[in-house]
């Protein structure tokens, strides 16, 4: 009996005063815990801040480019100055921006891109000769046709859906 108690005392002393490392199981568990915490922090930081910001920026840039291309197309659709001349100009726009579809609208002297997200979209003013009166029409994204027709007031451009 006294040897056992003595042994117990030395064991306790051994546990509380030695410098040995923890067992590998504990070591792996601690490592796993640290890595999981780090990943959690990193992923939440990225997806909470950086990733949505980049998605918004690229969506806005793409929206600007699509609007510019569409505006150039509307400008190109103006027929030459001859009485009774009409023309049509076809172009193909990307079907979605940032995963959502959008619409292109002719609003008098300007062309508007309507997109569900606020950051994407905008209004552009084409450069027209004096004989063009207005741009009108609303089309969904995809293949569109800009048709020009003569009216008594001048040339009217209308945006229409194009077929393939």
């Amino acid at each position, binding site marked *: 009996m006294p040897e056992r108690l003595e042994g117990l005392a030395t064991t306790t002393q051994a546990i509380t*005063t030695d410098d040995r490392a923890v067992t590998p199981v504990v070591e792996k568990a601690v490592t796993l815990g640290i890595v999981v915490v780090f990943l959690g922090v990193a992923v939440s930081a990225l997806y909470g801040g950086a990733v949505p910001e980049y998605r918004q920026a690229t969506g806005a840039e793409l929206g600007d480019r699509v609007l510019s291309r569409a505006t150039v197309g509307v400008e190109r659709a103006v027929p030459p100055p001859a009485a009774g001349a009409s023309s049509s100009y076809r172009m193909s726009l990307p079907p979605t921006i940032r995963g959502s579809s959008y619409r292109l609208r002719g609003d008098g002297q300007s062309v508007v891109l309507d997109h569900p997200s606020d950051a994407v979209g905008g209004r*552009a003013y084409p*450069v027209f000769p004096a004989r063009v009166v207005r741009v009108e029409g609303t089309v969904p994204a995809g293949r569109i046709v800009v048709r020009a027709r003569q009216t008594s007031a001048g040339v009217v451009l209308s945006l229409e859906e194009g077929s393939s």
Partner: protein
Amino acid sequence: MDDDRRAASDWPLTGPRRAQTSLPALGLALLVVAVVTVLGLSMANGALLTADREPADTRTARSLADGLVARDSPLTDRGNVLERSRLDRVDASWLTDRYPAVDHARGVRVTLGSTELVATGPTTGGASFTRLVIVRSRETRTAEPPLSRTRSVTLPRRTRRATLRIDPPADASVVAVTAGDRPLLRDRQGLDGTYNINVSRFATTDLRIRGTGDLAAGDVVVTYPAIRTEKTTLRVTADV
């Protein structure tokens, strides 16, 4: 090995230290991952910034440049030929009224050669497009040849018509007017009055006046539009 066993009462300074040699390595690895992530983000940011092509600026400047020099521009009669008389009315308010794109842009600047025609606002960071143009100016010139010595007037190129006012005194008469050898006006009784003639615009025209008697300067007055053309560049800068 002897100082491995220290008194328990000396904790935490000297108490049990569970050294774990793999944990610093883990910390270093996580630091490397974090640094690489930050580097990647900054590269992505840089790429996004350089990918901003400012399509609105480019489109507005190019369309405006093409629109001003086109055949149906308010400043031209022919493509790429600007009329000097119409350029005189180009100013900021005219450009803004005529083109809504200019009205809704932050700044547009139009420069002809080295002269600035219009500046509607700041154009730092905008896009520029240049077009080669010809500026055509017309002025009406009058020539009164001193008929005592020279009886000819040379009309420059690009002049296709002229007006002659012939008013000879009583004792003289103008019998014929020729362009080189080609007769334009002829009257044996004597020309008197105002006549319009057409000449070739591809070469200079040598008008020769044939008459009898004592003709003096002022008896024949030739009025013609002289056209001067000048090659220059039109530069449009737009910041939307």
